[in-house]
C-alpha cells in the first residue's frame, strides 16, 4: 500500500484550488509547478516500474463507502502506465499555454485544467468500477466550463451537445455498472465494485450481453466512433485549442481504455457476443473518418475526423482478441495522444498566423517564413499518418497483424484507411505550409512559448519512433493478461462450434 | 368524548379550507383558507394526542403553528409587495411561471 498514486492524483487539484485563491498572477506558477511535478513523478514511476509483472503496482486500497461496497482503490499496471504518462505529458504544454497567454479569468481556467487533470488521472488509475465512474463523470465538469466559458463561435450549442451526448452515455454506463455489481454479488455476499472481485465473480452470459452494450455506448461516445460522433463537429469547432488538444488527445483514450480495463476482463462472453458488431463499427469508423477528413476544408476538422479513424484502429485492435492487436491498440493510444496534442497546438499557431483562419482555402505558403513550424508540423504529420519509422506505425502494424490473424477481410478493409490517412494528412500539410501564400497568411516563425510547448512533444514522437520497445516491453504483460479471458471465451466458442458442426 | 367527533370536525374544517383555496382568487383569502386547513390538521393532532395520552401530537401541533406563522409572514409580505407594485390582487393573473 503506497500513497504515491494519491499524491499524483490530487496534486493538480490541490494546486488548482490554492492557486485560485492566491493573489495576482502568482497562482499560475503553482498550477504549472503541480503539472510539472506530476510529470516528474510519472517519469520516476516509469523508471521504477517492474516491467515483467502483469499485476497492479503501487496499489492503494481503502474503504470509501462501505455500505455500497465502494472502495478507494488505485493501481498501475502496463495498461494504464502510459496513459498516466500521456496525461502528465500532455497537461504540461497545455497548462504552459494557458499560463502565458492573455486569458480572461485565467485563474478559473487554470483551476478547471487542474481539476480536469485530476479527473482524468483518476479515471485511468481507478481499480474500482464505482470510482472509475465517479472520475469518468467528473471529467465532464471542467470540460463543460472550459468549452462553455472560453470557447468561440456557437459555444453554447456545442457545450449542450457535448454534455448531452457524454452524459447520456455515462448514465447508461452507470446503469450497467450498478447492474453488474448487483448481479455479480452471490446470495448473501457483500456487494463489491472492485474490478478484481467482479472479474472473479463474473455474471451470467446472457446478462453480460446487454451490460456490455451499455458500457460500449458510453465508450463509443467518448472515443468517438461512428455513429455516436455527432457532438464532434460543433464541440471541436468551438473548443479553445489547448482544451481541444486534451479533449482529443487524452480524453478520447479513456473510452477505449475502459474496454481493456473493464469490459474485456470482466465480461469476456459479452464482449465476444458483440465482437463482430464492434469490429464492423471500428472498420466503418476508420473509413468514414478518413473519407470525411479528406473532404474537410477546416484544418481542425481534418484532425478531428482523423481521430475518429484512429480511434477506430484502436478499437479494431482491442476487439481482434489477439495479443498483437491489443498490444498495438495500447501503443496506439499513447501514440495518437502524443501526435494529436502537438498537432492541435500547431493548428493554433497556424491560425495565429492567418488572422484566425483555419480553412485551407485561405492558407498556404507558410513554410517560407516559418521553417521551424513547418518542420515540426511535417514530423507530426508523418507520425499521424503512421509512416513507418514512427511509433504509430508499430502500433498500426500490430493492430493490422492482430486483425489479419482471425479477421483477414476486416483487416484488409482497414488498411485502406492507412492509404487515406496519407492523402488527407499530406493534403493538410501542403495546403497550409506549401503552395502559394494564402490570402489570410501573415507568416512568421514560432516564438519561444510555441516552441517550448510543441518541440518537446515532437522530439518525444521521434524518440519513440526510434525505440518503441520502451513502451511495448512495459505494456506487454498486462495487455496479454487483460485480453486473456476474452481469448479463452473465443477459443471456447470455436471449440463449441466445431463440436456442433459434424 | 369519542375521538371520532373531533376528526369529523377536523375533516369538515379541512374541506372548507381546501374548497376556499381552490375557488377563491384573492391571495388574502387563500391564505386564510390555508390557515384553516392547517388548523384542521392541528385539531386532529391534538385529538390523537389526547387519545394516546402522550405529548407527541401536541409537539407537532406547536411546530405546525410556528410554520403557519412563518408562512403568514411571507405570504402577507408578498401581498403587501404586490399592493406596492400596484399589481392586481388576483392569483389567476399571476401565471408567469407557465411553462
Amino acid at each position, binding site marked *: 500500500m503506497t500513497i504515491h498514486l494519491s499524491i499524483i492524483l490530487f496534486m493538480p487539484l490541490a494546486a488548482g484550488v490554492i492557486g485560485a485563491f492566491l493573489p495576482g498572477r502568482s497562482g499560475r506558477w503553482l498550477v504549472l509547478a503541480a503539472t510539472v511535478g506530476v510529470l516528474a513523478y510519472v517519469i520516476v514511476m516509469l523508471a521504477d516500474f517492474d516491467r515483467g509483472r502483469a499485476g497492479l503496482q503501487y496499489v492503494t486500497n481503502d474503504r470509501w463507502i462501505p455500505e455500497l461496497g465502494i472502495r478507494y482503490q488505485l493501481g498501475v499496471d502496463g495498461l494504464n502506465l502510459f496513459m498516466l504518462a500521456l496525461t502528465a505529458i500532455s497537461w504540461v504544454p497545455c497548462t504552459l499555454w494557458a499560463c502565458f497567454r492573455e486569458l480572461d479569468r485565467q485563474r478559473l481556467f487554470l483551476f478547471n485544467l487542474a481539476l480536469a487533470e485530476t479527473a482524468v488521472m483518476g479515471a485511468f488509475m481507478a481499480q474500482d468500477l464505482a470510482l472509475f465512474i465517479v472520475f469518468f463523470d467528473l471529467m465532464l465538469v471542467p470540460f463543460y466550463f472550459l468549452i462553455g466559458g472560453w470557447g468561440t463561435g456557437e459555444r453554447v450549442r456545442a457545450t449542450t451537445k457535448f454534455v448531452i451526448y457524454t452524459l447520456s452515455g455515462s448514465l447508461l454506463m452507470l446503469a450497467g455498472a450498478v447492474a453488474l455489481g448487483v448481479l455479480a454479488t452471490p446470495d448473501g455476499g457483500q456487494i463489491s465494485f472492485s474490478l478484481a472481485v467482479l472479474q472473479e465473480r463474473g455474471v451470467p452470459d446472457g446478462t453480460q450481453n446487454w451490460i456490455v452494450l451499455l458500457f460500449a455506448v458510453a465508450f463509443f461516445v467518448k472515443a468517438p466512433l461512428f455513429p455516436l460522433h455527432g457532438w464532434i463537429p460543433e464541440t471541436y469547432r468551438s473548443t479553445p485549442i489547448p482544451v481541444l488538444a486534451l479533449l482529443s488527445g487524452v480524453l478520447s483514450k479513456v473510452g477505449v481504455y475502459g474496454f481493456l480495463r473493464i469490459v474485456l476482463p470482466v465480461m469476456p462472453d459479452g464482449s465476444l457476443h458483440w465482437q463482430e458488431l464492434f469490429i464492423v463499427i471500428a472498420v466503418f469508423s476508420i473509413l468514414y473518418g478518413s473519407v470525411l477528413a479528406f473532404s474537410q476544408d477546416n484544418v481542425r476538422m481534418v484532425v478531428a475526423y482523423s481521430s475518429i479513424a484512429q480511434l477506430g484502429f484502436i478499437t479494431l485492435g482491442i476487439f481482434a482478441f489477439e495479443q498483437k492487436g491489443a498490444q498495438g491498440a495500447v501503443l496506439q493510444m499513447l501514440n495518437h495522444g502524443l501526435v494529436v496534442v502537438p498537432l492541435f497546438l500547431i493548428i493554433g499557431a497556424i491560425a495565429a498566423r492567418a488572422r484566425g483562419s483555419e480553412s485551407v482555402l485561405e492558407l498556404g505558403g507558410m513554410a517560407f517564413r516559418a521553417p521551424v513550424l513547418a518542420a515540426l508540423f511535417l514530423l507530426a504529420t508523418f507520425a499521424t499518418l503512421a*509512416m513507418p519509422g514512427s511509433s504509430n506505425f508499430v502500433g498500426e502494424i500490430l493492430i493490422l497483424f492482430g486483425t489479419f490473424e482471425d479477421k483477414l477481410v476486416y483487416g484488409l478493409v482497414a488498411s485502406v484507411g492507412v492509404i487515406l490517412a496519407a492523402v488527407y494528412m499530406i493534403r493538410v500539410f501542403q495546403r497550409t505550409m506549401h503552395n502559394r501564400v494564402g490570402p489570410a497568411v501573415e507568416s512568421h516563425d514560432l516564438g519561444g512559448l510555441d516552441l517550448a510547448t510543441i518541440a518537446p512533444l515532437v522530439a518525444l514522437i521521434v524518440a519513440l519512433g526510434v525505440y518503441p520497445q520502451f513502451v511495448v516491453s512495459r505494456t506487454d504483460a498486462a495487455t496479454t493478461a487483460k485480453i486473456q479471458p476474452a481469448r479463452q471465451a473465443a477459443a471456447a466458442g470455436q471449440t463449441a462450434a466445431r463440436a456442433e458442426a459434424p | 368524548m369519542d375521538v371520532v367527533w373531533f376528526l369529523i370536525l377536523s375533516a369538515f374544517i379541512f374541506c372548507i379550507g381546501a374548497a376556499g383555496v381552490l375557488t377563491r382568487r384573492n391571495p388574502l383569502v387563500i391564505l386564510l383558507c390555508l390557515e384553516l386547513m392547517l388548523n384542521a390538521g392541528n385539531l386532529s393532532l391534538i385529538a390523537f394526542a389526547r387519545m394516546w395520552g402522550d405529548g407527541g401530537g401536541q409537539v407537532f401541533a406547536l411546530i405546525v403553528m410556528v410554520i403557519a406563522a412563518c408562512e403568514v409572514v411571507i405570504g402577507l409580505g408578498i401581498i403587501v409587495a404586490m399592493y406596492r407594485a400596484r399589481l392586481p390582487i388576483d392569483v389567476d393573473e399571476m401565471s408567469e411561471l407557465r411553462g
Partner: protein
Amino acid sequence: MSATDYGWLILAFPVAGLLVISLGWRVLPGRLPGWIASAMIGLSFLAGIGAFVQIQDLPSDERAVVASAFTYASTGDFKVDLSILVDPLSVFMCLVVSGVSFLIHVYSVAYMTSDRGYSRYFAYLNYFVFSMLLLVLAANFVILIIGWAFVGAASYLLISFWYRRGTATHAGIKAFVMNVIGDVGLVIAAFLLLDKTGSLDYSGVFGAVDHAFSRNDTTLVIACLLILVGAFAKSAQLPLHTWLPDAMEGPTPVSALIHAATMVTAGVYLIARMYPLFEQAPTAADISAIIGTATLVFAATVALVVTDLKRVIAYSTISQIGYMVLGVSVAAYGAGLFHLMTHAFFKALLFMGAGSVISAMGGVQDLDRMGGFRKSMPFTFVAFLVGACALAGLPLFSGWFSKDEVLAFTLNRGGGYVVLGIFGYLGALLTAFYAFRMVFRVFFGDPVPEARELEGGHIAHHDPANPMSGESEDVDVGFPGEEHHIAERDWPMKVAMGVLAVLAVIGGYLQVPGVDDAVSKFLDPTFESSRFIDDAPSTAAQWVGLAMGGVVAITGVTVAFVAYRRRRGVTLELRDRFPRLHNFLLHKWYFDELYDAVFVRPAATLGKIGRTVVEADFVQGTIVGGATRIVGAGTSFARAIQTGYVRAYALLLLLGVGGLALYFLIASS
C-alpha cells in the same frame, strides 16, 4: 572492424550530416552545408568500401553477416530487432548508392547555389541517402518497410522542394500516395510470411520458405504479388508508374539521384532480395517479368513523343527499370543488378547534362525550344553524348554490356521467355531512337537564341516561370535564379559529370562475357541457393546477344539520325499522318485520366456524400435529431402541465394526496 561495424558506419554518416545541417542551418555559411553533406556521403562510401573488403575476406558461404542494435518491438510472435544484414548484395547496393549519391551531392553543391533552401535541400538529400542505405541494409521486413517508406518521404519532400509551385506539390502528393500503396502491399505481404513462417527476419523467412510453402502455393503467390505491388510502386512499373514523370518537378539533381539512379531501382533490389520466395512462386516471377517487359515497351513509346526534356529521360528511366525487373524476374540476378549499376551511372549523367542545358535555357525544359548547344557547351555535349550512347546500348558503352546480358538471359530461358526477349529488343530499338532524338534536338541544328548568347558569354535569363503550367514563379523561394549554374563554368559540376562519364564508358567492362565476370561473381554468394545459379547462357550465346543488341542500337541511332538530321520534318509528317496515335502516346496512354476517373473522382464524391448525406442527414438528422425529438416530446408534455395557475397546482396536489390516501385505505383493508 568487422563488416557489420562498417555497415553501421555507412548508416551513421548520413544521419550525422542530416543532424548537423538541420540543426545548424541558421549558422552554416555559403556552400558549407553542401560540402558537409557531400563529405558525409563520401565517408559513407568509404565505409562501404571497408565493408566490401571485410566481406571479401570471409569464406564465401559465410558472407552474410547480421548485426542487431536493439529490440525494436517485440510482442508475441512479432519480434523485430533493429538489425542490418551485410552481404554481397547489400554491399553492392551500398556502394552504388553512396557512390552515385556522392557525385550528385558534389554536383548539387554548385547547381543549387542560388537557391534559398540550400541547407534544407542538403538535409533532405542526406536523409534520403540514409533511408536508401537503411533500405538496402535491412535484415528484416519491418526495417525494410521503414527504409522503404523513408525513401518515399524523402522523395516526396524533394519533389515538392520548390513548394510554391502548385504542380510540384501536386506531383509530391501523387508520388507519396503511390508509395504508401506500395508500403501497404509490403505490410500485408510481411504478415502473410510471418503467419506461415513464424518470422520476420530474412534469414528466418527464407530458411523456412521451402517447407512452409509448396511450389506455387497460393498464399505465397499472393504474398509475392503484394511484394511486387511495393516494388512496382517504388520502381514506377505499370500500372503504378504515373507518379514518376510528374516527379520531375523536383530540382534536376534530385531527378538524377532519386528518380533515376537509386530510389526507383529499389524495386529491383527488392525482387532480387526476395529471390527465394519468387523461385518458390514462379507464377509471381513470371507476372513480374511480363509486367517489366510491358513497361519497358510502353515507356519507350511514350518517350518517343514527349517534348519535355526531363520527362523524356523520366520515361526512359521507367523503361530501363523494366529491363532490370525483367532481369531479376527471370533469375538473371547478376545481370539485372549489373544493369542497375550501369544505368545509375549513365542516367545520372544524362540528368546532369539535362540540368546543365536547362540552366542554360533559363529554366525552359521544352525540347521544341532547344537546339544547337553543341558549340556553346562542349563539355556538357560530350558528357550527354556519352550518356546517350550508353543508354542506347551502342557497342562498347556500359549499357550495351548490361542490357544485352539481361536479354541474353531471357532468351536463354527459352519457351515463352523468348517473346519477352523479342519485346526487349524492340524496346532497345526505341530506346536508341529516343536517346538520340534528345541529342540531335538539343545539341545539333541551328543554335537557339539562348545558345548564341551563351557563345557570347552570357547566360539567358527569362522571367522565372513554371515549365509545366507556364505561370510565373513566386520568386521569394528562389529557383536557380540570378545565378545559373551550368556545367561548363562550375568545377564541382564538371568533376561530377566527368567521373560519371568515365564510369558510363568503363562500367561495362566489369562484366564482359568470357573475359571477366566481376559483378556476378561478387554477388554469387547471395544467390548461391538459387535454382538457376548454373543456368547462365554460354559465352557464345552472350556474344550473339551482344551482337544483336549492337545491331539494334545502331539501327535505332541511324533512324534517329535520318529523321532529325538528314530528312528533317519526317517526324512532323508522321505526326500529321497518325494524329490519333500521336495523341495517344502524348497522353501517356491516358493512364492519368483513367486513374482520375476511377479513383480520384469517386473518392472525392464519396467524401462529399459522406459530408452532406450521411453526416448531415443521418448522424445529425436521425441520430442527433431523433434524440432531440424524443427529449422534446417529453418536455412538451411536462410544459403542458405547468399552467402557472396556483389553483391548478393545488388541485393536483389535493388529487395526489387523495389518491395516495385512497390507495393506502384500500391496501390496508
